[in-house]
């Protein structure tokens, strides 16, 4: 058994195809003066041919993986035709070198240029440059590689790594699984495998040498295990497991358009947590109609300055329009384990007990007001709720609400008409807020319980620290009592109460939570169908 990292769930069993992108041997050949013209034409033809191939791939990617991935292929076409590539290659040929050698020299130099740029996003372009180069040089040398689009039958694809144009040609019907030597959860192969629903394991060095074509390979994308030529007994049990998984998957998929109602007919609101715009499509795929937690941190992270109001507005609007039923937007929850370099936050000894979330935004009023303006403007396009994170005292809530009213007044003076009602709510994630929920309930339209933090603060146990992981107990009586108190306080005041922590997405706890009286459960999209299935079995 070989152990790697499971990056795309599911079980694949099939014969191996080894996809080896061996680097071609390219030697420098000095050309006679009269051969130069022919060689230039040969390059131009190859360039046109490579462009045709890339256009075909781009078209396919656009249908299967979306515009973002298609843009990567488009960039390769632009590289191919760029004067810094095409003109330089022709110059080298004019100096008397053969086309393949010239192309390789120029493209490798450009790839290295990208690798040496100080911006990570640009360094990755070296992969695209070399991917394009391999295609062009193979054409120049008349070299045929295993063409991934020509794979027939059910196979497990074994490779060192897959490039963007490689993965673009994969399809679920033909590829039962993928195993690569390098990669991580966020690598290109992993993302594409997940979006195509192909089980995948990455990070098994040497697999290309260890497995031969035709070997029977079992890929477990959940556990990260890869088995080569298992004995009959094991193979049978894998096949049984695969059948079971497939059956369960089918059962779940049949629930996409069904209502979330209990066996005795009580409807339950199931919502999704999302944290970036690409989650919209994913959430829609599992039939989600409302967003219970829209994390806005992605707009602020991995950049050098604050996002503008306009940029935020456009992002919020996109989500609000995608889910007309309801979108709860949480204001910036930064601090704790997430830092913004451009905010120059002081180092803290105890960041989870430090200046994070509402504590930070109330101190950075300009930043906060820009976000509130963007959210209010987006509220014109649908049904929006605003949610303040990490509230511990009434003063914090009132200060946040006051700012919101100031911003609303400013917008109205500027002539922005805000007619749609906007629900104002708060997260219950500090024990202080949970214990005084009755007081808070008079000031907000809803609560959403953030169990990850509520549990860690109540049990005084860092949830990232494995040595105290045993204390992270969602059903500890202390937590249950807090939840009861919060739900009662909400219902006594006539407001709704939801939950958006990990606990909400655990189907084993669904019955417990519904019996406690939660009105809404918001979870990662991967949990939606499993929880819906559970809801439909429960009698309240």
């Amino acid at each position, binding site marked *: 058994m070989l152990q790697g990292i499971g990056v795309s769930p599911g079980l694949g069993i099939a014969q191996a195809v080894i996809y080896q992108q061996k680097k071609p041997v390219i030697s420098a050949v000095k050309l006679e003066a009269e051969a130069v013209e022919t060689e230039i034409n040969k390059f131009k033809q190859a360039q046109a041919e490579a462009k045709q191939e890339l256009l075909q791939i781009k078209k396919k990617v656009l249908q299967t993986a979306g515009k973002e991935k298609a843009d990567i292929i488009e*960039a390769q076409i*632009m590289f191919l035709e*760029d*004067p*810094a590539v095409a003109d330089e290659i022709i110059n080298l040929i004019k100096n008397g070198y053969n086309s393949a050698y010239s192309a390789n020299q120029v493209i490798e130099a450009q790839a290295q240029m990208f690798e040496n*740029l100080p911006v990570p*996003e640009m360094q990755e372009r070296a992969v695209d440059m070399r991917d394009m180069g391999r295609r062009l040089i193979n054409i120049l040398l008349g070299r045929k590689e295993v063409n991934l689009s020509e794979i027939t039958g059910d196979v497990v694809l074994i490779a060192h790594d897959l490039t963007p144009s490689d993965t673009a040609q994969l399809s679920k019907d033909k590829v039962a699984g993928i195993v690569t030597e390098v990669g991580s959860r966020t690598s290109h192969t992993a993302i594409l495998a997940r979006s195509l629903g192909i089980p995948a394991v990455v990070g098994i060095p040497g697999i290309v040498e260890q497995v031969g074509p035709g070997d029977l390979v079992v890929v477990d994308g959940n556990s990260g295990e890869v088995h080569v030529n298992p004995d009959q007994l094991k193979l049978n049990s894998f096949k049984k497991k695969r059948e079971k998984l497939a059956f369960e998957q089918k059962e779940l998929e049949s629930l996409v358009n069904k209502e979330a109602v209990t066996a005795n007919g009580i409807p339950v609101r199931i919502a999704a947590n999302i944290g970036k715009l690409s989650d919209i499509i994913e959430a829609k795929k599992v039939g989600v109609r409302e967003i219970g937690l829209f994390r806005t941190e992605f707009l602020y992270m991995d950049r*050098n300055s604050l996002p503008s109001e306009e*940029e935020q507005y456009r992002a919020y609007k996109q989500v609000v329009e995608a889910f007309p039923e309801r979108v709860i937007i949480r204001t910036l929850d930064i601090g704790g384990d997430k830092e913004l370099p451009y905010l120059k936050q002081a180092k803290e000894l105890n960041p989870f007990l430090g200046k994070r979330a509402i504590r930070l935004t109330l101190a950075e009023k300009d930043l906060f007001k820009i976000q509130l303006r963007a959210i209010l403007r987006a509220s014109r396009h649908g049904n929006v709720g605003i949610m303040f994170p990490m509230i511990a005292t009434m003063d914090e809530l009132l200060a946040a609400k006051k700012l919101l009213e100031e911003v609303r007044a400013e917008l109205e003076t500027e002539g922005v008409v805000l007619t749609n009602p906007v629900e104002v709510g708060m997260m219950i994630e500090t024990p202080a807020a949970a214990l005084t929920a009755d007081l808070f309930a008079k000031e907000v339209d809803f609560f959403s319980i953030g169990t990850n933090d509520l549990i860690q603060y109540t049990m005084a146990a860092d949830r990232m620290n494995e040595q105290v992981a045993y204390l992270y107990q969602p059903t500890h009586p202390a937590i249950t009592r807090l939840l009861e108190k919060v739900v009662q306080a909400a219902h006594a005041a006539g407001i709704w109460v939801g939950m958006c922590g990990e606990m909400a997405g655990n189907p084993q706890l669904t019955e417990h939570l519904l019996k406690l009286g939660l009105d809404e459960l918001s979870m990662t999209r991967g949990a939606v169908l499993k929880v819906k299935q559970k809801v439909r079995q429960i009698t309240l």
Partner: protein
Amino acid sequence: MIKQVVTIVNPTGIHARPAANIAKLAGQYDATIKLAHKDKEVDAKSIIGIMSLAAQAGEEVCITAEGNQAEEAVQALVDLLSKPFAE
């Protein structure tokens, strides 16, 4: 020769997609157009050249153009560079 300096406002600087937009726009003009940033000057019709500048938000880029339509070209590029790019 027409010459103008602009400050990049796109928050993530000139990464792949903005570079593609700039190169496409520059490609529509006959003029020879160059972008200079720090001590480097590149062909504005080359996406690779533009990306190699690794220009960040808040930094200045100098646009120069010579030949036919030089003035229009510089103006069009100034317009594109001095606002955030649509993502």
